């Protein structure tokens, strides 16, 4: 078991209620460095809400979110991003009218203030970083292409690339392979294994085959709570999990 000071992200007793309905309740979650941790659970279990709470999109009503010794609750979204937490949305959200290169460039962390933007120049460092990220996500041949005409899979990779530009310490991916072909899934799995070498990745996923491929640890959620946690092996043999989720 990890001792607590080794964890990069520690979420304790996290809860949020919407008009009395507790979407997430007493949620505990510990993320070790350089691991892929997958959150699974039936629809409405509160998986996406957990990501929203961590990245500040939704304000938690109780609990603690500790990231490298700093409390994230109450911080504004952009500050949480700047601390090193990247978030990918379920539907690819990229800038369709801009080219692949411009999408990556816009995600470069230098010059994110208003005046910083005005003075921003395409220096060699910026170009290098865009090229190397484009290589990682396999889009280095289409830097000049408008992002809107990319295939669904490529769009998802581009958004992951946009996160990588910011050099985050934690990346959160919401159903990254939904709607992908088998080939694209394999490639995405490789990509996730690759990027988790020097950062932690939280993935929400439904596809069990895919989870088996990428997960170091699996957290199972049901009705806003964690009901099981551990290796895929352990979790899939847990009777509680079988009852609420896999058995269905």
């Amino acid at each position, binding site marked *: 078991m990890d001792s607590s000071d080794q964890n990069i992200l520690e979420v304790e007793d996290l809860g949020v209620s919407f008009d009395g309905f507790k979407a997430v309740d007493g949620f505990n979650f510990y993320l070790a460095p350089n691991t892929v941790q997958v959150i699974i659970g039936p629809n409405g279990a509160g998986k996406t809400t957990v990501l929203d709470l961590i*990245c500040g*999109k939704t304000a938690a009503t109780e609990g603690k979110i500790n990231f490298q010794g700093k409390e994230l609750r109450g911080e*504004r*979204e*952009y500050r949480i*991003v*700047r601390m090193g937490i*990247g*978030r990918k*949305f379920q539907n690819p*959200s*990229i*800038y*369709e*009218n*801009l*080219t692949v*290169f*411009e999408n990556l*460039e*816009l*995600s470069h*962390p230098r*010059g*994110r*203030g*208003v005046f910083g*933007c*005005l003075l*921003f120049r395409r220096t*060699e460092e910026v*170009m*290098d970083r*865009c*090229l190397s990220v484009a290589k990682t996500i396999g889009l280095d*041949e289409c*830097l*000049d292409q408008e992002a809107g005409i990319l295939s669904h899979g490529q769009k998802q990779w581009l*958004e992951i690339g*946009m996160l990588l530009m*910011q050099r985050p310490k934690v990346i959160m991916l919401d159903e990254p392979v939904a709607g992908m072909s088998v080939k694209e899934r394999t490639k995405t799995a490789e990509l996730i294994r690759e990027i988790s070498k020097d950062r932690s990745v939280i993935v929400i996923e439904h596809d069990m085959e895919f989870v088996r491929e990428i997960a170091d640890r699996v957290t199972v959620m049901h009705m806003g709570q964690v009901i099981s946690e551990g290796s895929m092996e352990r979790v899939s043999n847990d009777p509680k999990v079988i009852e609420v989720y896999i058995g269905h």
Partner: protein
Amino acid sequence: MPLFLKTLFKTRGEAIGFIAFLVLVLVIFPLAMPVFRLNLVGKYLSFGFVAIGLVLLWGRCGVLSLGQGVFFGLGGYCMAMFLKLEASDPESTSIQSTPGIPDFMDWNQLTALPWFWEPFKSLPFTILAIFVVPAVVAFIIGWAMFRRKVGGVYFAIITQALALIMSLGIDGNQGYTGGRNGITDLRTLLGWDIRTEDAQYTLYFLCVVLLALTALAAKYIINTRLGRVLVAVRDQEDRVRFSGYDVAIVRTSVFAFAAVLSGIGGAMFVLQVGFMSPSIIGIVPSIEMVIFTAVGGRLSVMGAIIGCLIVNWGKTAFSEAYPDAWLYLMGGTFISVVMFFPNGIAGLAEKFPRIRSLIPASVTERIKGMATKKTTKTVSDGQ
């Protein structure tokens, strides 16, 4: 081509368009028109400042403000207060019961100049105020709303309400503001009579030069990273926020910048037209400003200026002949623009075959070029 020119004009067509516009307003109009008409063009162009602001704010950043008249008015009233004070020297107002204060104050039984009028005796202060007052007001309003993620229709309605509040406020405080009649009978600027033909020519050229500089500044912003961030905020707000940008401050800043431009436009309006009144800044004029921008093309700086010229020209020409039909024609124009060519006149112009780009090499070539150069360099360093 130097780099900063490339930042200003993305295509050769844009550069040619800009030069053609300068020739039109600096050479052809002054030669072809009597000074009365030229002065009208100058008045239309003072709305061009507002339109440029709306291109950045509405076209690029997706924030529709129906209250730009507020800032046009703030700039205009600052200018008008200075000119009014100069016109109200004790000698020319000696028949008033309190000489030395503006005539409308005297009519409203004021016996001393209100404190907030005092600093407008100074021209440097007035010029500063034309920039700072709209900026500060817009920043406070924008920050209050954008931080709470108020946007879209709600923002439009609130700005609309502000335009109403402003015009009612001015209307209802006649002693302090000149009321419904506005501030009229403006004569001189530091002793220089602004009503003469010579002065009207000079002010026209001043307005055109300022407008051209404003257009260049806006084009520059559009082609920097800030310009791309604005579009990104419009199209994918959450992605921008979760790329570590403070969306609220981006929006607030554009709103404040657009307000400053409107203020400059208001000041140029007052100088050329010679008065300022609440009827120029209320709800209807504020919406008209949006229409100019929409007709010209809300994405295009030059398009918006052309839109101001055409719509205002149409208004003058048409309302001289058929005063009642004008509003219907304008409403019809606006609806058809929104329905059939949402990017306005500029959008139609862009449908013509793409004019050659000023940026020759693609990013792929450039980026790979850089990478190869570096590899060769490392190799040669190693040897």
